[in-house]
């Protein structure tokens, strides 16, 4: 059953050929069998899943329900689920049982999607490898010695290994696309504000964006359709009519202008990744697309600008974790200052503390103009590069990451090397654009993703290109042998 597309699953559920309880139990059995080696789930919620599946079956028995009713889903542990532990991969929230649902969770509950559990992630979504979780590193199903990417590495791993048919993820600097690329799955980061951030534990508010992680572009379109839309509870939510993400999946690519940034194929990009991406671009050309060269001259400035702005926002967002109202509290605090300092010091992991300190420094007196203001100006320059490039093309393509999945422990002591993993994804977050990773081949036996970047609100176009690419390729159907 785990090899079915979401369309096939939906058809079988609606025709009552399978029940949601049987489908959900199938995934729970696979989780039981395989998750101990992958460490991709922080919490598994079998009772909740079966209870929700029974309700979905009741709806389906009455001929009610929508396309996704009865299809189980896994949520990244950054999304609050009422009554379920929501740790964000941190000791700080190890004891936190969310008292409410995130809007995304509420929406997927409303259509009747059973919740299998909460997936592992880099602590507070800060990382590019899913190694910094308090619950230990997640493994890549293609190679258990390799990372699955981060921070949504748990969600990518469960899709790649068939431990969930669909999963939610979040992308602050590439955290949906890079793990999707490393694990050979499809992931889309929508336009900033398209999916509600309410109930999603904040890291960097002007960057954080939830989105779907799935096997195929068509599956992603269905999940995005259920997740997206204006939410009055989120002040950053886009006030616009909901887009139809499914309407253009079957459009021809004839005449589509595909921009290839010359700066994306320079120094630092692995030769085998470059070859796989170029072959994917050739597939698009054969499907009728016109390939044009574009330029994103400020690409290299995106990483330093991001690592000023995101930690600055994190230092503010994470100030709420003080040991007073919820979360971890140190033993026997001597006074209020000791309570704050020790609770945060003991509750946060190394990378989170590092980013909070960088952020506090960048915002401090005497450094604000040199770092924060400068980075905000560079953010506009990076955004303007994209606006100019989109005058020449409909979609930009390139690599998602400079390499395939690296080994666990390989970069954990070198933050700069880890930060540069997001070289191609971060500019998109600075600009707030939609972008996706689509399986596009293998290099040295590990998956490679094709990066598709669109202009604002062009998710339907990106999904169209990805779907058409997946009509003539089978990279998205590959699964590691052991999990087949």
């Amino acid at each position, binding site marked *: 059953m785990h090899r079915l597309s979401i369309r096939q699953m939906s058809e079988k559920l609606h025709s009552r050929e399978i029940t949601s309880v049987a489908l959900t139990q199938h995934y729970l059995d696979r989780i039981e069998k395989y998750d101990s080696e992958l460490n991709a789930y922080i919490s598994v919620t079998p009772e909740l899943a079966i209870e929700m599946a029974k309700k979905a079956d009741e709806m389906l028995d009455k001929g009610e329900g929508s396309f996704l009713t009865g299809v189980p889903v896994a949520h990244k542990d950054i999304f609050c689920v009422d009554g379920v532990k929501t740790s964000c991969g941190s000791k700080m929230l190890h004891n936190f049982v969310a*008292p409410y649902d995130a809007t995304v969770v509420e929406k997927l509950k409303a259509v009747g999607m059973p919740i299998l559990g909460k997936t592992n992630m880099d602590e507070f979504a800060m990382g590019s490898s899913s190694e910094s979780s308090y619950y230990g590193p997640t493994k890549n199903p293609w190679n258990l010695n390799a990372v699955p990417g981060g921070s949504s590495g748990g969600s990518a791993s469960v899709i790649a290994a068939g431990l969930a048919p669909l999963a939610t993820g979040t992308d602050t600097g590439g955290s949906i696309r890079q793990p999707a690329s490393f694990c050979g799955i499809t992931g889309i980061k929508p336009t900033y504000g398209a999916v509600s951030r309410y109930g999603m534990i904040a890291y960097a508010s*002007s960057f954080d964006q939830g989105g779907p992680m799935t096997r195929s572009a068509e599956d992603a379109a269905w999940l995005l359709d259920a997740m997206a839309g204006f939410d009055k509870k989120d002040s950053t939510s886009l006030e616009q009519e909901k887009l139809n993400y499914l309407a253009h999946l079957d459009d021809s690519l004839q005449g589509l202008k595909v921009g290839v940034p010359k700066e994306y194929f320079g120094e630092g990009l692995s030769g085998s990744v470059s070859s796989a991406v170029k072959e994917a671009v050739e597939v698009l050309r054969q499907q009728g697309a016109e390939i044009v060269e574009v330029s994103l001259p*400020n690409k290299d400035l995106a990483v330093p600008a991001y690592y000023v702005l995101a930690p600055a926002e994190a*230092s503010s967002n994470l100030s709420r974790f003080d040991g007073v109202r919820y979360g971890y509290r140190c033993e026997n605090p001597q006074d209020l200052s000791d309570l704050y300092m020790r609770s945060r010091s003991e509750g946060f992991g190394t990378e989170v503390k590092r980013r*909070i300190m960088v952020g506090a420094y960048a915002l401090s007196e005497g450094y604000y103009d040199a*770092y924060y203001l400068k980075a905000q*100006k*560079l953010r506009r320059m990076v955004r303007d590069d994209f606006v100019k490039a989109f005058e020449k093309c409909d979609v930009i393509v390139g690599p998602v990451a400079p390499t395939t999945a690296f080994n666990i422990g390989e970069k954990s002591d070198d933050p*700069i090397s880890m930060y540069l993993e997001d070289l191609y994804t971060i500019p998109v977050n600075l600009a707030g654009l939609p972008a996706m990773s689509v399986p596009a081949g293998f290099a040295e036996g590990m998956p490679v993703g094709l990066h598709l970047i669109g202009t604002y609100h062009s998710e339907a176009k990106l999904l169209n290109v990805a779907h058409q690419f997946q009509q003539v390729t089978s990279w998205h159907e590959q699964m590691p042998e052991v999990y087949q």
Partner: protein
Amino acid sequence: MSIGNEDVNKISRLAAISVSEDEVSQVADKLSSILDLFAQMQAVDTDGVEPMSHPLDQVQRLREDVVTETNQREKFQKIAPSAEGGMYLVPQVIE
């Protein structure tokens, strides 16, 4: 740019994160390497460029000045590390 031990102690206070004496040098090294990454921004001429705080240049949406939330004090206090009589307990603040 090099960060010294003194700077680490100052940043530690700003961030409300304690750093033990054993860790100070190591933290200083890592922060210095991150600030080196930032140094490449300084060479770029950004005169006349408008800072961008929201990726879509949107302004904060305002809402009516009316109460929309219900009182959920009990639900929230249930998950507090220490609460009593409707209040969150912290160490003594005033002597």
